């Protein structure tokens, strides 16, 4: 072998021989983080993932991704109170991404295009579901997708539960409910209407069901007695809202007062407003700041002419008036009387003071625990004390909403599936949160939220037409593209471009990046310049 003599010109060489990676004490690593929208979604949707598809205009892929978790996007895009948007990091930059509007667009697009989902091969297992509300329908859908046979027994005359008998039409047109329910039925789910389950164990035995999921909702209104007031003049929100579904409309006086300050009270007041009577008054014992109702709902109700009497308690009534007492809130937020009385003109009072589940028929089921307030105890797998019987939605303890019930249905379906297979469902390990401080917002274009069109006020006051319009194809695309992709790489090529040492490898179309640790000096530029915070800097040696 030739040996170069000393001090003779060397052959040219490349700097690639010089592995600068050994300078490093810290190294960058790609991570995935849990975005706040996904974290807060009661239905457990992977919002960021479906927005990612929508950003490309791949709406069917986006919808399929959405349908992994929520079988009723057109409904939820309209009625969900979207806690995701309250948590959205973009709100700290300009305005939150209008997630519900894009969800609704996808849901409506699916209805228009007739998109469907695929089910797994039949397992031969049978599951009974009691109640065709959001919880029951959601569980049915997920179980059917997993290949189980599902039969729903519904006590009411139509499917939908509170989505039909609670949420007013102007927020959720009934053809949307019917279409999304029909899609679930087309997967082989049978819904038997007007079929109240009285004896659960007998129904299970008769139908040879392997498991049951209870989601009967909370349809029993809390009532109070108003001294001096004729009982006929005092209605409750549940009965009233159900009557709006075609049953006999109860007799209302010319001037209606609604007692309560939650979302149901607002729904009732806005429905009454549309019947062409005198302006409705909402009487609530706390103030605006303490109302559990969504702020935008209150605002819209006021626009439509609903009047609010905050900090008032009904003391008594007579033929055509109510006597209310002014109250104050103490430091703990508790209501304190003042003794000052006022008279309000009102012929009818509708109570919207909350609802409870009528679970008395379950008391005889062995092992099943019914609480004082009518709710049923479940463990973290949504199973009651009776093996194989699961429950969810408004009838279990905790917060109540259409989306929470839908989430319960999905969760229960996973656990029922595991129960039927004799295993337990293991939740995959979660990612650390994608917080706002990890973002480099410089790289995001300023873009205002796309606004959904609103029906004009005159029509809103006199008809039950849907008041909020949908986004069109273009605005939906822009809105999806406002997503910051918090905590998860969206392939912007920044890390690849800002590395002074060419140590970031671009893996190609549709793929992400890798780091060439032979040359990475550990400067941290890629971490700092990653818009979405998807790179961590970690110690080279612990």
């Amino acid at each position: 072998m030739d040996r170069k003599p000393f001090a003779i010109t060397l052959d040219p060489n490349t700097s690639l021989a010089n592995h600068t990676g050994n300078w490093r004490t810290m190294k960058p690593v790609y991570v995935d983080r849990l975005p706040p929208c996904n974290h807060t979604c009661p239905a457990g949707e992977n919002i960021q993932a479906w927005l990612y598809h929508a950003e490309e205009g791949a709406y069917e892929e986006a919808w399929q991704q959405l349908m992994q978790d929520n079988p009723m996007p057109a409904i939820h895009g309209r009625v969900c109170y979207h806690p995701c948007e309250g948590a959205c990091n973009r709100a700290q930059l300009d305005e939150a991404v209008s997630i519900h509007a894009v969800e609704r667009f996808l849901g409506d697009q699916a209805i228009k295009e007739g998109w469907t989902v695929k089910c797994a091969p039949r397992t031969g297992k049978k599951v009974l579901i009691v109640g065709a509300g959001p919880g029951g329908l959601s569980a049915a859908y997920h179980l059917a997708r997993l290949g189980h046979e599902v039969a729903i027994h519904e006590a009411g005359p139509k499917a939908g539960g509170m989505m039909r008998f609670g949420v007013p039409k102007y927020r959720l047109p009934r053809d949307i409910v019917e279409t999304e329910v029909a899609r679930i039925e087309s997967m082989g789910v049978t819904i038997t209407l007007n079929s109240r389950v009285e004896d659960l164990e007998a129904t299970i035995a008769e139908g040879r069901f392997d498991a049951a999921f209870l989601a009967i909702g909370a349809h029993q209104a809390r009532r109070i007695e108003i001294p001096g007031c004729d009982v006929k003049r005092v209605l409750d929100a549940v009965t009233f809202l159900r009557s709006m579904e075609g049953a006999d409309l109860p007799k209302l006086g010319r001037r209606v007062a609604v007692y309560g300050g939650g979302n149901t009270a607002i729904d009732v007041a806005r429905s009454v407003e549309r019947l062409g009577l005198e302006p409705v008054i909402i009487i609530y014992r706390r103030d605006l700041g303490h109302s559990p109702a969504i702020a935008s709902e209150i605002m819209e109700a006021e626009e439509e002419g609903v009047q609010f009497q905050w900090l008032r308690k009904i003391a008594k009534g007579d033929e055509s008036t109510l006597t209310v007492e002014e109250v104050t809130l103490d430091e703990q937020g508790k209501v304190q009387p003042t003794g000052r009385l006022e008279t309000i003109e009102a012929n009818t009072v509708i109570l919207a003071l909350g609802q409870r589940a009528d679970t008395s028929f379950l008391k005889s089921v062995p092992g099943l625990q019914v609480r004082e307030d009518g709710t049923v105890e479940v463990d973290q797998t949504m199973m009651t004390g009776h093996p194989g019987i699961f429950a969810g939605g408004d009838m279990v303890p905790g917060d109540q909403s259409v989306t929470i019930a839908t989430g319960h249905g999905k969760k229960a379906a996973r656990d029922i599936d595991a129960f039927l297979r004799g295993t337990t469902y293991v939740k995959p390990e979660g990612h650390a949160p994608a917080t706002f401080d990890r973002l480099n917002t410089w790289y995001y274009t300023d873009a205002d939220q796309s606004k959904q069109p609103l029906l004009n006020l005159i029509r809103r006051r006199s008809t039950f037409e849907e008041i909020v319009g949908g986004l069109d194809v273009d605005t939906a695309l822009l809105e999806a593209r406002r997503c910051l992709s918090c905590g998860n790489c969206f392939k912007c090529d920044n890390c690849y471009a800002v590395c002074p040492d060419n140590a970031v490898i671009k893996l190609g179309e549709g793929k992400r990046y890798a780091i060439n640790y032979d040359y990475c000096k550990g400067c941290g530029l890629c971490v700092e310049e990653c818009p979405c915070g998807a790179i961590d800097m970690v110690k080279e040696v612990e």
Partner: protein
Amino acid sequence: MSTERIKFYQTGTFTAGNRLLDEGTRTVQSRMDRTNSLNSGHRACQGCGEALGARYAIDAAVRASHKQLIAVNATGCLEVFSSPYPESSWQIPWMHSLFGNAPAVASGVAAALRAKGRDTVKVIAQGGDGATVDIGFGCLSGMFERNDDVLYVCYDNEAYMNTGIQRSGATPPFAQTNTTPVVSEHPGNPLGAGKNVPRIALAHGIPYVATASVADLHDLERKVTKAIGICGARYIHIQVPCPLGWGADPAHTMKIARLAVESGLFPLFEAEWGTVIQSSSIRRKVPVERYLELQNRFAHLFGPPPDTDAIAGIQAIADHNIALYGLLR
């Protein structure tokens, strides 16, 4: 001509690439087939702005010239860290002669190419601020006044970093260097010293002069691409933060360069034939403190007690730039 605004409300329009941008609007640096003219294994410090600036400029020039490019390098950090004998990081024809003669050597290369009829080959000369502003300034001015067919790119890290952080004619006022230490009443580089070479280049009335920043990749590549397409003497002055010499976190190179632009201290503009024709507007204006506080070379301005007069003096420079180039629109 003004910059075309990308009407695209999408996350990442300001990023290097993006799956949703069409090919034409992505940067050269986002391409899998970029040249990587300055290859891995070079010995620049962690987070080196100059290494980035050089790769950005040369990769764009290689693409714009259809790979017909020769680079002449002055002495300086870039030359030293990229070519320790017998290694080279350069993936293009590249030569180095002396500290002060890069513009003259490049003029010679251009003349030789003309003599040989190789009119498709483009010539770039490049150097740091020391080679450009001080040592090679005579050669540079000569190259300008003869209108030689060379694109000169200056990577300005505002001092002689390679030899141990001595001040240059491009060192900003009040900056601490090893030859402008913080002593007695006159901290750092004196206010009023130094020269503005982009404006001197402008005064030569050459076909093209531009400033650029590593923090604005789209703009930098556009200017290099445009310059490659022009014949005659061209000059691009790129600010490249130096973590070591400026006393900054290596991870903050981009951030500091961005703040220099956003504060108005480093205005981005283009000029043709001696007239400024375009400037980049400030997107999120910041006071100069945001830029200064990230760098140890300005630490003495923040006290105790803080030197508010000095900071006000620097702010006045930024405000003057903003007014001069119309940076707030």
